[in-house]
């Protein structure tokens, strides 16, 4: 840039960042399939099917955590209802998978089993598009997007903020859960959808299909990560942070916060919907439990543990918390909820910036050799400012401090 005073525009990712990004891309698209499919089962390098399923599931959660970071970490809006969007995406995919079962269900009927069980004769209207994969892909994005848009428009227009907004989102997810629990709603009631057989006509329970879904989830996560980086690095992202820090100031700068909040809210919801759609075929079940209030709160915990407003942090947080969960619920199942609560309190009290914040603090404490020239250049810059005639000395010393 021609002006030495103005800081240069930050790149999308640093060199190291790109390195890590491509390493992760190779890991999910090449390394994991090789280790799972071609390395023999007895080998120490073999990636078990259980491992694939677990990491695949956690990557879906990581997408949700990333979405939470955009709305909570960067915009300061704590949603405790993101489970709804995740479940909506999941249900849309689940409906398609139910139709793919065809006549292979227990009752050998064209209708999904639960409808036969309820003695329904025809498909309800909202199942109309569920046999088309293309329509399913569109609806995975559109359904959470539209629900988020309508909810967000009224909430943000009424200037509902802070804890009130969080409570309303909790109420929303709870209401949605109750609605989906009803058999009459037409989504399988409390059993939800399960027993999937095929996707795109191909059997769903094979190792190859599982690996494909795994790689697809990994690529989606990485793609969303890049997209989120681009968003927060743009002026749009800085307006979001400004809304978080001083919303009235943003208004008096001439920005209407409503479209900004609404945009990021819908983007965040759509990301959750996509995550839900990837989650269902891998896990093999979707039920209203995904809309429980605890599930949505857990999403906030992943983000807080990893570190808000860092993007990488929430992804790490999703892996850490869910890794701990899958271990603890086997080792000591009765302690999991206590652990989760304690973790949330501990992070709030001692690690306000999460794991990433801790790591940064530790990195700052021991000065690296790189820091020395940096400090020199800062001193030089201050020296330059001092020699500028228009700036009185008192001001510069203050600035240099």
């Amino acid at each position, binding site marked *: 840039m021609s002006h030495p005073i103005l800081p240069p525009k930050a790149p999308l990712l640093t060199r190291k960042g790109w390195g890590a990004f491509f390493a992760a891309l190779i890991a999910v698209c090449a390394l994991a399939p090789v280790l799972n499919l071609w390395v023999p089962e007895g080998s120490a390098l073999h990636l078990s099917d259980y491992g694939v399923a677990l990491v695949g599931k956690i990557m879906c959660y990581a997408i949700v955590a990333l979405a939470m970071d955009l709305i909570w970490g960067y915009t300061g809006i704590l949603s405790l209802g993101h489970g709804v969007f995740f479940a909506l995406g999941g249900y849309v995919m689940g409906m398609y998978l139910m139709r793919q079962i065809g006549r292979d269900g227990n009752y050998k009927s064209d209708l999904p089993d639960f409808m036969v069980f309820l003695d329904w004769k025809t498909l309800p209207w909202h199942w109309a598009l569920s046999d088309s994969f293309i329509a399913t892909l569109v609806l995975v994005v559109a359904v959470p997007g539209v629900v988020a848009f309508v909810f967000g428009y009224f909430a943000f227009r009424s200037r509902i903020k802070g804890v009130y907004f969080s409570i309303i989102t909790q109420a929303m997810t709870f209401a949605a859960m109750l609605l989906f629990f009803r058999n009459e709603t037409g989504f399988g009631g409390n059993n939800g959808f399960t027993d999937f057989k095929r996707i795109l006509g191909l059997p769903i329970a094979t190792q190859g299909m599982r690996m494909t879904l795994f790689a697809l989830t990994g690529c989606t996560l990485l793609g969303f990560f890049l997209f989120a980086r681009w968003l927060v690095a743009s002026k749009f992202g800085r307006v979001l942070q400004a809304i978080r820090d001083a919303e009235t100031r943003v208004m008096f*700068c001439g*920005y209407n916060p409503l479209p900004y909040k609404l945009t990021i809210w819908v983007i965040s919801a759509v990301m959750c919907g996509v995550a839900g759609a990837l989650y269902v075929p891998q896990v093999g079940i979707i039920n209203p439990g995904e809309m429980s209030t605890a599930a949505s709160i857990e999403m906030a915990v992943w983000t807080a543990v990893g570190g808000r407003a860092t993007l990488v942090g929430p992804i790490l947080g999703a892996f850490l918390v869910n890794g701990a969960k899958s271990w603890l619920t086997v080792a000591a199942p009765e302690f999991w909820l206590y652990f989760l609560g304690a973790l949330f309190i501990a992070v709030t009290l001692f690690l306000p910036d999460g794991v990433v914040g801790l790591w940064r603090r530790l990195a700052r404490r021991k000065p690296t050799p790189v820091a020395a020239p940096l400090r020199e250049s800062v001193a030089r810059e201050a020296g330059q400012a001092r020699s500028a005639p228009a700036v*009185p000395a008192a001001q510069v010393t203050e600035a240099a401090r």
Partner: protein
Amino acid sequence: MTPDLMEQGAQRLAANTASGGREAGFGRVAVPGQVDTTHGRILYLEDVSVSFDGFKAINKLSLDIAPGELRCIIGPNGAGKTTMMDIITGKTRPDSGTVFFGSTIDLLRHKEADIAQLGIGRKFQKPTVFEQLSVFENLELALKTHKGVKHSMFFRLDSAQQDRLLDVLHTIHLAGSAARRAGDLSHGQKQWLEIGMLLMQDPKLLLLDEPVAGMTDEETARTAELFLSLKGRHSLMVVEHDMGFIRTISEIVTVLCDGAVLAQGTLDQVQADERVIEVYLGR
């Protein structure tokens, strides 16, 4: 209307409009979003009242400001100074009265963000900057440009805008701190950054609520210099308690008390006013 009032009005028009007010008589098409100051007034409040829970914060307040004028507002705590700014900037709706920006724009029909885009900038009593962003980014956000979502996503500073940003950085004496986090600035520097953000918006009217509070004497002197240089190109409304500062910058001072104008005139005139001494200056 008495002849002397007419005389005063004619003088005001002559002083404050390019054509001496002669343009005002012609039929013109009002351009939406453009401020019409041919009548010699950029801001016009008439009979504005607002009450909070029965307390009349503003009570039939009438006030007007000429283009390019620097108006100082003084008054005791609770006189309604900040509430008046809230009304002008759309933060508070008055119960009754009219508020016009120029002759054609009814401010009561607009929201905060629209009013800011129309050309009214505001500095808060407590310096409000975006603490997590750098000084540079703070100014960039305030820059006068399209403020829609799509535009922000693909926004890049062009070179004219960079120059403007640099200009303002020098004006507010923060050229050496462009990359610093705004939250790390001193109180006085934050005040300046906020003034800088106003300048980036290039408003026609600036509302400044206690701009020199917490500044050192030197900083105050430089702020006075800055305001005097803005006068003429912009209209300014400054609320302050610092009498020395007001003496340096003021032409006309308006004294507010109990939500209405108590007195108006040069600083010497209002300081000599019995009622003003009674309620504000003290004996």
